[in-house]
């Protein structure tokens, strides 16, 4: 009795596995691709080595004044020296711990929301949303035993974050109301909401900021005046709420009609069917969209430079105009770009992650 044994498999041809095969498939599959690859390599060679030598290898890392920047590359000494100003603006340096505490509180407070098994997440989240702004305002602005810091002294990245977060926090409820109004059956309410939304969406933010800085004082009763930051915030909130409204409307429209009908069949009135059935589903669906509008808002905060608030970008611009640091514009802008990029890129990745995670319902 002879048992038949198979010979061991031959290894695959060397050209079809490993790095060589991958390169043949992805880089040199035909003459056009080869040409494109060579061109791309040439581009990389053109851009990357000078960039690396400017930012890292030939850069000046230590020193205190401009004179210490002797090497050819970037002068990061400038950023080190002005770092405080870029982060806090003109916030008094002995009180800057308050800003740090505010940021740490936010990080620690939000962290449990990302833990999946945290009990009673919704209650905690709502409580946090109510308490945190009050604490943050108290810490940043002062009062009740803390020294007052006028908003004109706020600046740098801190101001950017304040405008962006207050902007989105204020715009969200207003946007939801506007979206509901736009989908309402009552013509008068619909017309008012559509007009409001289309007006703010049709004009650039810069004119809104101009308007809030020069026209708002005219609109208010005599003697009543807001400070500059608050005026900017009002403009930003109104502007942003229109965009949030459109995102939320997208979510409302995506809810199947059966859900509305089912809610009505259960005997729920308008507010309860919206609050208990429609909005929870719709808002969950549009979270990525809202994160995207937040990214847009975060980038747009740089426009407050036009009305003379000192956010991150304006701080950099001012510092670059300092006679002691002439010619440092490139370093300053690259630094600001990096900070903005980290925030925006991080948020956009997060929104993509959410999109995958929340993509659960309404697939039959």
């Amino acid at each position, binding site marked *: 009795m002879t048992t038949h044994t198979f010979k061991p498999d031959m290894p695959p041809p060397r050209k079809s596995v490993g790095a060589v095969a991958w390169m043949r498939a992805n880089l040199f599959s035909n003459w056009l691709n080869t040409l494109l690859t060579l061109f791309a390599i040439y581009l990389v060679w053109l851009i990357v080595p000078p960039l690396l030598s400017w930012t890292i290898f030939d850069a000046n890392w230590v020193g205190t004044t401009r004179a210490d920047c002797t090497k050819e590359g970037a002068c990061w000494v400038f950023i080190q020296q002005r770092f405080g100003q870029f982060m806090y603006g003109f916030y008094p340096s002995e009180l800057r711990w308050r800003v740090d505490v505010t940021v740490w509180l936010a990080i620690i407070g939000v962290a449990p929301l990302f833990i999946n098994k945290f009990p009673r997440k919704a209650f905690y989240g709502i409580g946090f949303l109510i308490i945190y702004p009050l604490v943050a305002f108290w810490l940043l602005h002062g009062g009740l035993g803390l020294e007052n810091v006028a908003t004109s002294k706020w600046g740098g990245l801190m101001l950017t974050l304040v405008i962006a977060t207050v902007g989105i926090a204020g715009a969200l409820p207003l946007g939801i109301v506007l979206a509901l109004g736009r989908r309402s059956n009552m013509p008068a309410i619909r017309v008012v909401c559509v007009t409001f939304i289309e007006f703010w969406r049709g004009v650039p933010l810069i004119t809104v900021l101009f308007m809030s800085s*020069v026209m708002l004082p005219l609109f208010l009763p005599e003697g009543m005046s807001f400070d500059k930051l608050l005026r900017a915030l009002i403009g930003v909130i109104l502007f942003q709420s229109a965009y949030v409204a459109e995102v939320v409307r997208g979510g409302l429209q995506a809810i199947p009609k059966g859900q509305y009908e089912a809610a009505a069949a259960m005997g729920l009135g308008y507010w309860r069917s919206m609050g208990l059935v429609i909005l929870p589903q719709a808002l969950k669906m549009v979270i990525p969209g809202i994160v995207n509008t937040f990214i847009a808002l975060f*980038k747009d905060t740089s*426009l407050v430079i036009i009305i003379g608030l000192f956010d991150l970008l304006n701080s950099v611009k001012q510092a670059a105009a300092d006679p002691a640091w002439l010619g440092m514009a490139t370093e300053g802008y690259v630094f600001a770009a990096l900070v*903005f*990029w980290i925030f925006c890129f991080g948020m956009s990745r997060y929104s993509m992650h959410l999109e995958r995670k929340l993509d659960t319902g309404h697939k039959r």
Partner: protein
Amino acid sequence: MQNQIGTSRSFSLSDPRFRAWLFQIITLVAVVSMGWFLFDNTQTNLQHRGITSGFGFLENSAGFGIAQHLISYTESDTYARVFVIGLLNTLLVSAIGIVFATLLGFILGVARLSSNWMVSKLATVYIETFRNIPPLLQILFWYFAVLLPLPGPRNSLNIADSFFLSNRGLYMPEGHTADGFVAFVVAVLLAIVGTVLMVRWANKRFEATGVPFHKFWAGLAIMVLIPAISVLAFGSPFHWVAPALKGFNFVGGWVMIPELLALTIALTAYTAAFIAEIVRSGIKSVSHGQTEAAHSLGLRNGPTLRKVIIPQALRVIIPPLTSQYLNLAKNSSLAAGIGYPDMVSLFAGTVLNQTGQAIEVIAITMSVYLAISISISLLMNWYNKRIALIER
């Protein structure tokens, strides 16, 4: 009793129709009284400050210089003319930006889908870099960190003795009409008419006999040959005047001031990243089955792309693409950050400061933007209806 249900006019809160009326009336009253409150405050404030409202100020003489004006302008011209100049400058930078952003965006979008790993990764890096940096920051970067530190006109970067890049801007040759101009225009018109007639004839023959005709190459030949003959016979339509260095600056030629250059580069780079993503998602939205179906019908790669993939991709691409164009036009108002004389910096900035007519100036500026965006969205809706998929 039963007959009354549904027909009676009950004025109780449990009647939905009554409630609807009540809510709407409350809303309208709130909106109107809010409007009246603002209007009344404004009236009193204006009176107290001694500002006369109205658009009469537009007739006054402006008295300041403008760095770039597409129509003739002197300092004694009116504010109304300043407004027109600002509007034209806004339209100019938007138009240039849209053209270049579209080109760059389509190239990048296709590159990101490329099967070539290197090319697609490069496109991804570009897109992720530029769309995550605020446009204003990019504008300031190009202006303050790149263009202004360039050498002066005497040491400017010289490209083929006709393009000069310095801290005064980009100087380019300027075309003046020459003898052959009229003949050239006539030739181009003839070529267009000829191409249209050729395409019609080719389509008719294709419908009748099924024999295809090389429309593209024939059209190209007509469009090149007829104008070329005119140039050979009647001379060149333009004579180009290259900028020449005289004293401290260039004389002659067409100039892109550094503000315009910085704004164009930044807006193009920023918007192109978004357009690339739109193009990518549009092409990806056409399922592979469509390609396979086209191939099984016997279409080659070229016609598959032109007749099957692109028409369906465009349906997805065009609506968000228009809103990107609109964004670009709105972002051009960031010109105020570097002092490019667009409508916002010129009119809502300088004119407002000089005249103090805040309400009128802001109202005019906003209504221009509103008019632009509403007309574009109307156009969009019309287009959407035209190309919308007709389903059962």
